[in-house]
């Protein structure tokens, strides 16, 4: 390798941005290894690791046997001995065989060993629905991980964040669960010249009348909602949460103090979802600023439906607009 690859130029898809970000981590740090099912020759089922094995060799980018606990568990051993593994979980619904390793081992080894053992493991998980997939391929399991101490959980909504956040996640000395909104893999955007801080939310559209908080695949929907609302004379502020653990609620609290209204949007099921924790924190910090109850627009408390019904299940522009109307009419 001579030199480091540049920040992607021009319009780039999220998939290509992730690929470029991973390429850069491999170039920068010889301890970075990429492991998972089909990540080698195939480049992953979503092609996020496309070409990386060819360019960095089978020692750095390798296919594992088909075993999620095995992927995570062996990554723990690699990390104990100084490596910085990036594990790919092929689909959101397949993470659960590795759940014990993630929650009981990855999240706790640093604490267990009184700080002696660091596990800089990044676990990439394509997540969420909207791609017409069959069962177990459209889940939003983030709350299981945000509930578990010792893990950091982030999600990107744009190609720019995808590029920078994956680099920052891999460089972090703590384990990071990196959720990739698979329905946005092919959406295009420009990659910023510089990163923002990894564990901070970002206001992606300023507004005065009401705050919409979203993350991952729902940020794009929230921005659409803001466009439609603007036509109706309502000025919505949209915040991309980005960091789910540590949960950065500073931006949303500051925003709600100005707008007095908050609608929280996530694809994941409603009950005990991240929206509940966000609502609890916001009401505690901004109680006297609230003009209306905090509302959530989420998936229903059902298993993710077959694709024929997913458009009915997923939070969409109309459903969010309805919550906006209810909040402002309160």
């Amino acid at each position, binding site marked *: 390798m001579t030199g480091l690859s540049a920040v992607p130029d021009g319009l780039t898809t999220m998939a290509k941005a992730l690929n470029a970000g991973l390429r850069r981590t491999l170039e920068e740090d010889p301890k970075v*290894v990429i492991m998972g099912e089909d990540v080698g020759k195939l480049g992953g089922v979503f092609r996020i690791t496309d070409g990386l094995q060819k360019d960095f060799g089978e*020692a750095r980018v390798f296919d*594992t*046997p088909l*075993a999620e*606990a*095995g992927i*995570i*568990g*062996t*990554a*723990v*051993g*690699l*990390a*104990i*001995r*100084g*490596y910085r593994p990036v594990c790919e979980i092929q689909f959101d619904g397949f993470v659960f*065989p590795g759940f*014990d*390793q993630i929650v*009981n*081992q990855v999240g*706790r*080894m*640093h*604490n*267990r*060993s*009184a*700080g*002696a*053992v*660091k596990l800089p493991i990044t676990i990439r998980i394509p997540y969420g629905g909207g791609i017409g997939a069959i069962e177990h391929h459209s889940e939003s399991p983030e709350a299981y991980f945000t509930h578990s*101490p*010792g893990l*950091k959980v982030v999600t990107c909504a744009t190609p720019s964040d995808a590029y920078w956040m994956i680099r920052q996640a891999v460089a*972090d*000395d*703590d384990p990071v669960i990196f959720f990739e909104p698979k329905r946005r893999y092919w959406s295009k955007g420009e990659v910023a010249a510089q990163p923002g801080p990894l*564990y901070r939310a970002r206001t992606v559209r300023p507004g005065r009348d009401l705050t919409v908080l979203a993350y991952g695949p729902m940020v794009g929907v929230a921005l659409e909602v803001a466009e439609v609302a603007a036509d109706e004379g309502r000025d919505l502020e949209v915040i991309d949460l980005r960091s789910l653990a*540590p*949960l950065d609620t500073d931006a949303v609290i500051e925003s709600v103090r100005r707008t007095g209204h908050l609608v929280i949007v996530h694809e994941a099921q409603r009950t005990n979802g991240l929206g509940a924790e966000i609502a609890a924190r916001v009401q505690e910090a901004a109680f006297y600023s609230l003009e209306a109850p905090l509302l959530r627009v989420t998936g229903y408390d059902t298993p993710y439906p077959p694709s024929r019904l997913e458009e009915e299940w997923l939070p969409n522009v109309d459903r969010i607009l309805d919550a906006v109307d209810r909040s402002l009419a309160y």
Partner: protein
Amino acid sequence: MPSRTAATQAGTAAQGLLPTDVPISLIDADARACSDDDWKMPDELRLLKLYRGMVLGRRFDSQATALTKQGRLAVYPSARGQEASEIGAVLALRPHDWLFPTYRDSVAITARGVDPVEVLTLLRGSWHCGYDPYEHRVAPQCTPLATSALHAVGLAQAARMKGEDTVVLVMLGDGATSEGDTSEALNIAAVWNAPVVFFVQNNGYAISVPLAKQTAAPSLAHRGIGFGLPGLRVDGNDAAAVHACVSRAIERASAGGGPTLIESMTYRIEAHTNADDATRYRDQHEVEQWLARDPITRLRRYLLDRKLLDESKIDALDAEADTAAAQLRERMNADVPADPDELFKDVYAEPTTALRRQRAMIDAECRAGAA
């Protein structure tokens, strides 16, 4: 139609992966040397080291059990009766090798050189692990079972990738072999040809459940062939045989030969822990049969018969073990103060804002309590 060539290849690959019908033994229950052309008796110095390790280990073990009765340990899972397996295996490790132990392997960890008070930190309830894993290359004791088998494979692979001659010994019990992580670890180790030795102490019981309800395999060592790695069965109360088997498995792994699965046939003389009542599920007669096969008595008789040991040496070693136990008792009798600030230590490399706020809350509670 499957070709004859393919069938022959599978047959060739399977050769040498099955355990012997009779467990490997070098010193039998009557302390006689067994003739075994395949296995060499460890030299005299090694045998004396094994004996010493077992005597110190048993005294440590009985002291730890006593500490539970004095409320100084939250719980202690005894390895009494398993000293040949614990010591025979761990003394085969070279300094740069790694050990991945379970909660029942405190004897092995102590023999590896870790301070016994640090070893007992977990069972004392003062922290989840009391030693720095890098100092003696000993991973934290695995309490959920089998999760560490995968860590061992990963670490072994890391060593290989770095070009280091490191072999990883992971200790498991018979119960842990039923966990999915064990199967995944055996499989991945074999596929990667990782330098790992899976050392299963089959002590007959997983708490109360006997082996017959754990597996229908002819033996636990037979599980190796299905994953493509050799399975050995050894008399787990014969320190010489255990040591020879594990040493050879380490040499094999070190030379690039890949992983080995060893089933060490032993018996848990005590209940699962001090909190367990073994009379509810097993017959005392069974325990007595195994007491007659005691690993320490066996090696002592063997060494006495060959004048490698005498009564004065035995007494001196017993006195040394008593002194170590007394020192351990004294150190364990000191209270470890509980500082609420420790709750928030080392959850992340740097504390998060939320944790700093929660820490401030508990600090405020403490100040209010003190006022």
